[in-house]
């Protein structure tokens, strides 16, 4: 049975089992490889996408659970105001090292910023502690989120 899912404003019909995690549909069926696989168990955040604006682990989100929801991935997050600010701050602070975790980091950070324009350190910890960075870019992630928040505050 084909399932219809809405991703980045487009509706895709995919012919997979209902319980297939969204991650594999994105990466292997639709070829959107910006969303990464890290653990498959909601432990690392590499696969983070936004579902109706909420940061969500696509590795445990089955396609049949999506219904009418809007999925946003790293490929399109730059067209949201928070996403654009986060990406800009990420470049400014040169956050990525190997870069593999960064799609997920950016998806979590832009969901945070969209919901909370002035996150405290504790807010950042809460929103970002589900995203592992094996390269240890945490210091710069924190700084970049604060920079993005500042630019948001200035109407940036």
């Amino acid at each position, binding site marked *: 049975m084909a399932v219809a899912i809405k991703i980045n404003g487009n509706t895709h019909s995919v012919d*997979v*089992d209902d319980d*297939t*995690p969204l*991650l*594999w*549909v994105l*990466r*292997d*069926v639709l*070829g*959107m*490889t*910006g*969303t*990464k*696989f*890290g*653990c*498959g*168990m909601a*432990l*690392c955040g*590499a696969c983070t996408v936004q579902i109706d604006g909420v940061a969500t682990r696509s590795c445990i989100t089955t396609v049949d659970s999506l219904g009418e929801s809007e999925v946003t*991935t*790293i*490929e399109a997050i*730059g067209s949201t105001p928070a996403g654009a600010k986060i*990406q800009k701050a*990420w*470049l400014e602070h*040169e*956050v*990525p*090292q*190997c*870069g*593999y*975790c*960064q*799609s997920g980091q*950016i998806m979590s950070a832009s969901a945070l910023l969209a919901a909370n324009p002035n996150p405290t350190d504790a807010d*950042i*910890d*809460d929103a*970002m*502690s*589900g*995203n*592992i*960075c*094996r*390269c*240890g*870019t*945490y*210091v*710069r*992630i*924190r700084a970049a989120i604060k920079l993005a928040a500042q630019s948001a505050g200035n109407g940036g």
Partner: protein
Amino acid sequence: MTIDHALTERGSRQSLLPANLSRRSFLKASAAIGGGLVLSLHLPSSRNTARASEAAGFEPNAIIRIDGNGEVFLTMPYVEMGQGTYTAIPMLIAEELEVSLDKVHLEHAPPNEQFYANPLLGVQATGNSNAMRGAWKPMREAGATARMMLVAAAAKEWSVDPGTCRAQGGEVIHDETGKRLTYGALVGAAANMPVQKDVALKSADSFTLIGKPIKRLDTPTKVNGTAIYGIDVRPPGVKIATLAQSPVFGGRVKSLDDAAALAVKGVRQVVRLDDAVAVVADHMGAAKKGMEALQIEWDDGQHASLATEDIARELDKATMSPGAVAQNIGDVDKAMGSAVTRVEASYQLPFLAHAPMEPMNCTVHFRKDECEIWIGNQAIARVQAMAAQAAGLPQEKVIVHNHLIGGGFGRRLEADGAVRAVEIAKQVDSPVKVVWTREEDIQHDLYRPYWFDRLSAGLDDKGRPIAWKNRFAGSSVIARWLPPGFKDGLDPDSTEGAIDLVYDLPNFHVEYVRAEPPAIPTGFWRSVGPSHNVFVTESFVDELAAAAKQDPVAYRRALLDKSPRAKAVLDLAAEKAGWGSTLPEGSGRGVSLQFVFGSYMAQVAEVEVAKDGTVQLRRVVCAMDCGTPVNPNTIEAQIQSGIIFGATAALYGEITLKNGRVEQTNFDSYQMLRINEAPAIEVHIMASTEPPGGMGETGTSAIVPAIANAIYAATGTRLRKMPANPGLLKRA
């Protein structure tokens, strides 16, 4: 000075670098097809220098091409793993060539063991913090040589003395007449100019790029999802496979029932190997579901009852008998006899997995008489050679495409994944991408060896160490990975950080006992030898300071009169950390000092130990002298990275075996430091004009003893077995 200055300064790595090694870079110029100037450049190494002189020919291993638009293309033998190599090495050329950095473009080096050997490793590999150390002089020389040929071509065109011309911003300028020509216009003529010998390199004070914080060139694609890692490749018709390898090392498949797996929607095929099974499907979701539906019975083989304790016991035993002498200075036994105080300790370090964020993967298209491979790897020539063997094809029939690496840390210096993928692909008609689940990745790694170390020291009446003895046992990765590198019972990796301490130790004796654990494979792990040795030596120095009832910084400082660079970083770290100021109850500061990979580093860690024994790393202050800091921006990032990596190991890292199986499976049982646990990190980089040292791995080795020493300061409990065990640190 030459690039190996920093390395040989204290005798480090000498066994890989023959004394008569010529450091002159060989350069050759030619015209490019379709116009342009090509400089082929030879980075000499112990191995391929010999080979080159044998053949009496010239073997380039890096190529610089300047085209008719003045754009510069660089083919180089190093891969980008997040350490900023792709930015720092172009900086070297741009600096001497007098072009802006955005004119320099990188092209991937094809796998060729002879052409692209890294001069320090002798084989084509990026590891060991060595990219910048290998490239520092030859790449600048190449840039300067090209610049002089361009100047010569312009001078000839204008019939003026080349000495009256200068190069700037991609142009040659003749100030007297105001004439100028772009490099693009000059490349054709420049190709016919003689290659000048002994070009003068810029002095440090005239650098315009080197030493400036430069943005990395590879960042933009990593923030918008377009960067392509090995796991992202999609050759037409590719199928996705996942695999299960024998849970016990050395076991094999006894029986297999794949009926239920083949019934899963999207599953195409089940591949049975001698010691592994793979499910091939349209997508990873189906492959994983198919894998769960498989009924595999394993024959566990002879290691079915192996446990970590057995291995530790064997290593302990191994340190009771003499090993190969790695260093001997003075007369340790005599000095020990005259010591007023004796201190003894033994230390243990666990097996560790690499767990890069990008799980192991490799894509292979096996065709009748050739084989195409897509991978992200630190040693692609090794991949090509081993894949060819697995494929039963000559090496030239194996085409390897290298990609960005989602974390290497030593894991991707290995070709086991490519071999596995070839074995599977041989039974599949289409291209197949083999993706390890995280569980497979952690349970079938090549692990940082388990180490057992036995140390003793004798102190005089002032508490100074007059005798130092160290005997340690563990696996030699080099003996497997690069057999000629293991000689007379020693290899330079296993002993780095143990035999070349910064301290004044007049009677010093170190032995290494190679002891291979049964079944469990071992591999390079970020910072390799020092990740083990610096923990041990810096913990032991701390124990000596405690035995002498002296402050850990003051104690170290008194032993550094012959090592001013070490003393300077120690002083700086202590000062910036506020060493000596009081901390609340349950908190403590610990220091570490090292000279490894050609760089000096001191760290001060501040920890807080809760009543239940859990440790919080609050703050790390790091002072570093890494010679000329080529790109301070990436150096800072690399050190932060190394500290988090090492702190993860110190607080959580441990792979254990039970019944022949690795007990850890995913990030719940093999924990990573997360942002809420990350310390504040301050990095202070010393100004220097010495040749650059390594930095990608230095932060990792220094933080582990700094944390252990801080825990001692906070609790009075000395950690001699890592990782930190909250059970030992609990207070009533």
